[in-house]
């Protein structure tokens, strides 16, 4: 750690084009990375952390200019290096891995071919030697059956395997510095844990310096040697991981850490014995291709799911992508028609309702969607979006609009903001509009499908708090779908764990999280990034 730095940024400023929300993406950023250390850069969206990674690689778009400062790497200033020399640095000196390996890999060429390209460009090894190197790299990143993987196209590999292939490519030429821009954000929690371990292992073996960009303090706790916290393009705090995580000094860092939901559940609330929603043996199978049932691909998205939701309680459904949790949620509101089973809401079986009856009954059960920008029609004003539901169900327009403005106040928005269009709101505010829209019909049950996954941690904490308050005030019963166990621990009374369409375990949150019975639940809990940190720290700051 006391070695001389591999890369040092000195007063780096990057100017944004006119008309952007601020003048500088980066403002006087100074930091250094030594070989054999992992430096985590943490910040919320828009903090300039990705722009910094791109500036180091000199990959900023044309209208963005590096205005001042120096980037010393290997004895030269990257700010003044000419493009030809920069190409030598990229790949061989500094390598980069990205958030979404599917878009970073060329879909039309095999993985092995793309790794071999690194050698073809930067070295003059023979074809046979390159082939050997590629295989040994794929073994290094522990891809199962490297020979097959080398011949596979990107879409034939899983997300985790693709990210492993990207890492193999990045490490092909033994770069001195590896920049990882949110490399695990798009991955499931168990895969994320494996990739983090892999990066750590490879880094220790190869003594590479790693600049790791993330928004997740759990990941920081897991992997960082040192931490840099960024806000609005400035570094607000930097220090060793231990110092920053346990003894943060800057108020923004404290606020960010406090917003990370701890993995321990709050004390259980008394639950009503009356079940408002009862789901029994719901199943949904997808068939694709094939003719007259021959050669069709059959995917069982939900198998025999049975759950109950007591009145006034919150039921969490957790699982990784592809576990069927979203399909189940959409079955409950009949956006998807289940194949069989029964969904009893206040004694009415939703599975047997006809289209027209569903349209009438939707006011009892409403849904909040994951992506607040995609779930609001961009061409309607906010108040109109909220009033739409009641208008459809026969409320006169004027009354509905007045009620919409009252709902704005209820979800913590300025009632006068109703005349603005969705794109004029921030992500957190948009999710509040989505919530207001769902509440406008005064539902008994709210289905929330990953309602906070697209939000920054501090905003996430606010929306979760709001959801908790509304549940108390309006007596809502909530089905809360999430992939994040920490979030589930905070808001849910009951939790059901789903894997491959099946509910493998369900019960009270405190029971499931402290004494998981099913091996999959145990694996999930063990994979939560910074698990020890998340368990220890309380929202006490």
């Amino acid at each position: 750690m006391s070695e001389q730095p591999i890369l040092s940024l000195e007063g780096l400023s990057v100017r944004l084009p006119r008309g952007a929300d601020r003048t500088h993406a980066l403002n006087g950023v100074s930091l250094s990375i030594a070989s054999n250390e992992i430096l985590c850069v943490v910040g919320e969206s828009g903090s300039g952390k990705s722009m910094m990674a791109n500036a180091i690689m000199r990959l900023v778009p044309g209208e963005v200019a590096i205005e001042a400062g120096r980037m010393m790497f290997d004895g030269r200033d990257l700010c003044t290096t000419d493009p030809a020399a920069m190409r030598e640095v990229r790949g061989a000196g500094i390598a980069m891995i990205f958030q979404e390996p599917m878009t970073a890999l060329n879909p039309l060429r095999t993985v092995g071919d793309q790794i071999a390209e690194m050698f073809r460009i930067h070295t003059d090894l023979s074809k046979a030697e390159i082939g050997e190197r590629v295989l040994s790299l794929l073994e290094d990143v522990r891809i199962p059956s490297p020979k097959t993987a080398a011949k596979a196209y990107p879409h034939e590999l899983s997300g985790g395997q693709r990210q492993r292939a990207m890492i193999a490519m990045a490490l092909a030429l033994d770069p001195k510095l590896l920049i990882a821009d949110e490399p695990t954000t798009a991955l499931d929690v168990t895969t994320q844990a494996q990739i983090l371990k892999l990066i750590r292992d490879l880094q220790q073996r190869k003594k590479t310096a790693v600049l790791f960009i993330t928004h997740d303090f759990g990941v920081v706790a897991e992997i960082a040697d040192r931490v840099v916290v960024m806000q609005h393009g400035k570094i607000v705090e930097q220090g060793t991981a231990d110092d920053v995580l346990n003894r943060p000094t800057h108020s923004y860092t404290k606020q960010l850490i406090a917003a990370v939901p701890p993995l321990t559940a709050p004390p259980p609330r008394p639950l009503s014995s009356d079940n408002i929603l009862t789901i029994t043996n719901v199943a949904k199978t997808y068939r694709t291709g094939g003719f007259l049932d021959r050669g069709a691909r059959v995917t069982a998205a939900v198998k025999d799911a049975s759950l109950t939701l007591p009145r006034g309680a919150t039921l969490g459904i957790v699982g990784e992508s592809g576990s069927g949790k979203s399909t189940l949620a959409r079955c409950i509101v009949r956006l998807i028609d289940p194949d069989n089973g029964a969904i009893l809401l206040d004694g009415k079986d939703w599975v047997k309702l006809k289209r027209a009856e569903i349209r009438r009954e939707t006011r009892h059960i409403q849904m909040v969607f994951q992506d607040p920008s995609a779930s609001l029609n961009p061409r309607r004003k906010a108040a109109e979006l909220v009033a739409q539901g009641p208008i459809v169900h026969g409320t006169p327009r004027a009354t509905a609009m007045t009620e919409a403005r009252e709902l704005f106040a209820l979800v913590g928005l300025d009632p006068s903001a109703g005349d603005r269009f969705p794109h004029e709101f921030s992500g957190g505010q948009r999710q509040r509009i989505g919530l207001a829209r769902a509440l406008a019909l005064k539902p008994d049950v709210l289905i929330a499908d990953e309602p906070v996954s697209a939000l920054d941690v501090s905003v996430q904490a606010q929306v979760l708090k709001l959801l908790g308050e509304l549940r108390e005030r309006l007596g809502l019963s909530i089905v809360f779908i999430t992939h994040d166990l920490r979030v589930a621990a905070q808001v849910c009374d009951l939790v059901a764990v789903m894997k491959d369409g099946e509910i493998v375990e369900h019960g009270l949150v405190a029971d499931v999280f402290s004494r998981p019975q099913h091996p999959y639940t145990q694996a999930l809990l063990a994979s939560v990034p910074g698990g020890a940190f998340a368990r220890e720290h309380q929202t006490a700051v």
Partner: protein
Amino acid sequence: MDAAKRYFRSPAAVIGLVLLLAVIAMALSAGVLYPRDPLALAGRPLVWPFTNPRFPLGTDNSGRDIAAQIFYGARISLLIGGVATVIAVAIGTLIGAFAGYYGGWVDNILMRITEAFQTLPNFVLLLVLVAVFGSTLTTVTIAIGIVCWPAPARLTRAEFLSLRNREFVQAGRTLGMRDLQLILGEILPNALPPVIVYASVVMALSILLESALAFLRLSDPNVASWGNLIGLGRDVLRVQWYVSAIPGIAILVTVLAVSLVGQGLNDALNPRLKSR
């Protein structure tokens, strides 16, 4: 408006708009400047342009004022272009919207019909329609509209396919909206911008189609249209070439103007191109 500001930033789009406004001004002022019937005999036949101040653009083979016919022709071209475009886009969006929204067998049937229209060459189909239903101004306009709808239909269908699974449409469904409310109220406004841009292509195309019909003397002979004038000029093309050339230039300018306006609209309505 943002879009308006972006539109006026492009010089080509502004030139297009100025030309189009000029053609519209011609159409509006035709009655004032040339109160007489443009198809009435006005003087000696085949007077060259710029030789007689009474006929600045000369006269055609039967002695009718070319300038008057150009001014009145602007009316016909814009009328045919406008109405045929409205017909084509209306049929197209409707069919495209239903095909894209419902998918499955509805989509299959509607798209096979669309393809049936697309595989026939536009102009041949137009000739057939005019041959069967006669060549009055109304039938010609409707026929052009019927010939031009498949492309807007495909465009609308593609937009609907990508929009129908968006979360805001699902949100509308969970609010209890009917299919028609979703199609017209939620999806269509978001699907329209590319269709509006494409409408300019349809408009240019319908003006050209009408001229082509008139050139073959299959358009309505009782109106002063640019195409009719070109058709007449065909007989004297080698000597008095101006009879065909002058309306030709008018068509060129109008189609160019419409295309430039369409391109400008495309750039203005598509914010992703902002930085280019």
